[in-house]
């Protein structure tokens, strides 16, 4: 029975994880009127979902319900959903920061809980959310979600780009999806965001070229230090590709491979130049580690080289641009001779 608690703990981590997986929105997708305002194209409509399934409809969908991050992405291209559901309250979801939700119904503000009755009154013709290949489900419809909430999938087809090896899979995927829905992608906030992202990425790459930095992404808790496995954290794979070498832990938890669980006795197992600390608990983590006698056995911690890791939530070009700009600035003064 305690075992179930352990599972529950893992699940709550997973939950936090998927909670963060939401996306982002752009600040001002100004005046594009309701969904597909730029003249909804003629049907039929087809889209290849992240699962590989090809969804075909006679008409181009216009009444869309979207998972919060997906909504943010679509809105940046002028496609306004009729309803959204999130993994956390709208006010605190980083993906919705600055997104204009006027006129959009809120169908859920907690992971695993969607008001399907209210959703059905919106008569949706499409539901949009990330596809999670590891869990074989779309966001908000995962296995452990309440059966009642999963009925959302019965209202309309569910599509979305797949989570995977790069945040750009999502950013590009939503760009493509918006285009099929009739968005004028070239002339949108999203296009400006993409340009900003490319600039931020180039600056990041340039900054990393001058250094030889290794990083370990961690989520410290009072009883264990979780070391992130980049294989399941697309932004970490991106950082590595762009010149910040993120350490891959050698023995991730077989049951929950997002992390290697390090006891505090083993905190010094990896010695990176810099520690990337899970953004979901950044402030709390700083207090947690202060009480850990072995925290400073990590030389990067001893040297105070701690940086916020935008963990598991990025989706859009706009948010990625901001995150990379901040990272580049944070990494500017980091000493690259600390780690192994």
């Amino acid at each position: 029975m305690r075992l179930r608690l352990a599972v529950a703990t893992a699940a709550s981590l997973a939950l936090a994880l998927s909670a963060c997986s939401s996306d982002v929105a752009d600040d001002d997708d100004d005046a594009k009127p309701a969904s597909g305002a730029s003249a909804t194209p003629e049907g039929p409509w087809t889209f290849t979902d992240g699962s590989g399934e090809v969804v075909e409809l006679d008409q181009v969908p216009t009444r869309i319900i979207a998972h919060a991050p997906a909504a943010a992405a679509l809105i940046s291209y002028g496609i306004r959903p009729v309803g959204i559901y999130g993994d956390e309250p709208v006010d605190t979801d980083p993906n919705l920061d600055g997104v204009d939700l006027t006129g959009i119904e809120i169908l859920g503000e907690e992971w695993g809980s969607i008001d399907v009755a209210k959703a059905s009154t919106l008569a949706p013709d499409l539901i949009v959310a990330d596809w999670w290949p590891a869990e074989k489900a779309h966001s908000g419809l995962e296995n452990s979600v309440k059966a009642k909430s999963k009925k959302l999938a019965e209202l309309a087809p569910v599509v979305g780009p797949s989570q995977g090896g790069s945040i750009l899979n999502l950013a590009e995927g939503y760009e493509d999806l918006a285009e099929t829905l009739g968005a004028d992608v070239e002339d949108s906030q999203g296009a400006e965001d993409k340009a900003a992202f490319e600039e931020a990425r180039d600056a990041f790459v340039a900054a990393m070229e001058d250094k030889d930095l290794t990083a370990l992404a961690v989520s410290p808790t009072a009883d264990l230090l979780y070391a992130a496995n980049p294989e399941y954290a697309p932004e970490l794979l991106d950082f590595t590709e762009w010149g910040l070498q993120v350490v891959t832990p050698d023995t991730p938890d077989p049951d929950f491979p997002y992390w290697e669980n390090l006891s505090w006795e083993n905190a010094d197992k990896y010695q990176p130049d810099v520690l990337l600390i899970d953004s979901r608990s950044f402030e709390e983590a700083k207090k947690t580690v202060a009480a850990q006698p072995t925290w400073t056995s990590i030389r990067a911690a001893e040297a105070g080289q701690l940086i916020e890791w935008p963990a598991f939530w990025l989706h859009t070009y706009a948010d990625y641009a901001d995150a990379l700009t901040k990272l580049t600035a944070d990494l500017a003064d980091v000493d690259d001779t600390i780690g192994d």
Partner: protein
Amino acid sequence: MSAATVTATAAPRRRRASGLAAGLVLLAALVPVLAFLSITQGSRDIALRDVLDAFGHFTQSSSVDDTVTVRLRVPRTILGLLVGAALGLAGTLLQGLTRNALADPGIMGVNAGAAFAVVGSITLLGVSGLGFHVAAAFVGALAATALVYAVGSLGRDGATPVKMALAGAAITAGLTAVTTGLLLTDLAAQQQYRFWQVGSLAGRYAPIVTGVAPFLAAGVVGALLCGRWLNALALGDDAARGLGVSLGRTRVVLFLVVGLLCGAATAACGPIVFVGLVVPHVARFLCGPDYRWVLPYAMVLGALLLLGADVLGRVLGGTGELQVGVVLGILGAPFFVLLVRYARLAEL
């Protein structure tokens, strides 16, 4: 347990005091052995020599091995022994007090009270930091215990075992509902609260250990003095009264001791239920119905069980650790089934 033992217990007989004392000394002798293992073994490989050295030259500039040995493993070992002893005793007192063979600290609302206080202090008062949480958990556990007692004492007969069990269940349900409600609306609180969801000895260092140790020690001493009362209560309320025991006052004192033990244990480690449930049964199985012997046996067995499970979790957990609550669940459930199946639980 062999068939021979089973037959022996089936026909209760008086155990000789000298035999019981020898058994207790034998068990107690295992405590330093286990403590030695707990300090030398763990998820980090440290050579025995380095462990011993750590005590010799522990200074500010010490190595990671020294830090792990002295600042992680030593307090953890002390806490494991104290909390194990406390839970073993608390379970024995509770089962004797309520004459309910399945009573454990959870029945008194202790866990629910501690959880509510921790979550409430995070979400409503906005405090954070492990020290605050532990203090809040302790206060919450004690307050819940007091509330259970107060509600259970309403009515004509005072605090009867049945009413206390019902009051405990009701208050646990109520507090848990509020706690869940608070958690659902606050992601940050969920992450901090995770620490209390599964009982664990990890991450509790010197300040926490020294903070709760006096309470645990006081509770342990108090509990060991309660044997005579429990013996009287075991005969039934009327017989106890006939022996000159004041039922009301006895129950108040026993409740207070249990609240102290469970409150401090839960505050430090989170909910650890199995020890308090199983240990009293094993103790009674070994030494018969006399609580003056059952209590010290339960104390030593509780300490051995909790610390033993923790050492196991640390050795088996790879680079991480299995929480002691998880290990106890894996080991404890089948063990409890065997115990119930073969050892005919003592009537309470």
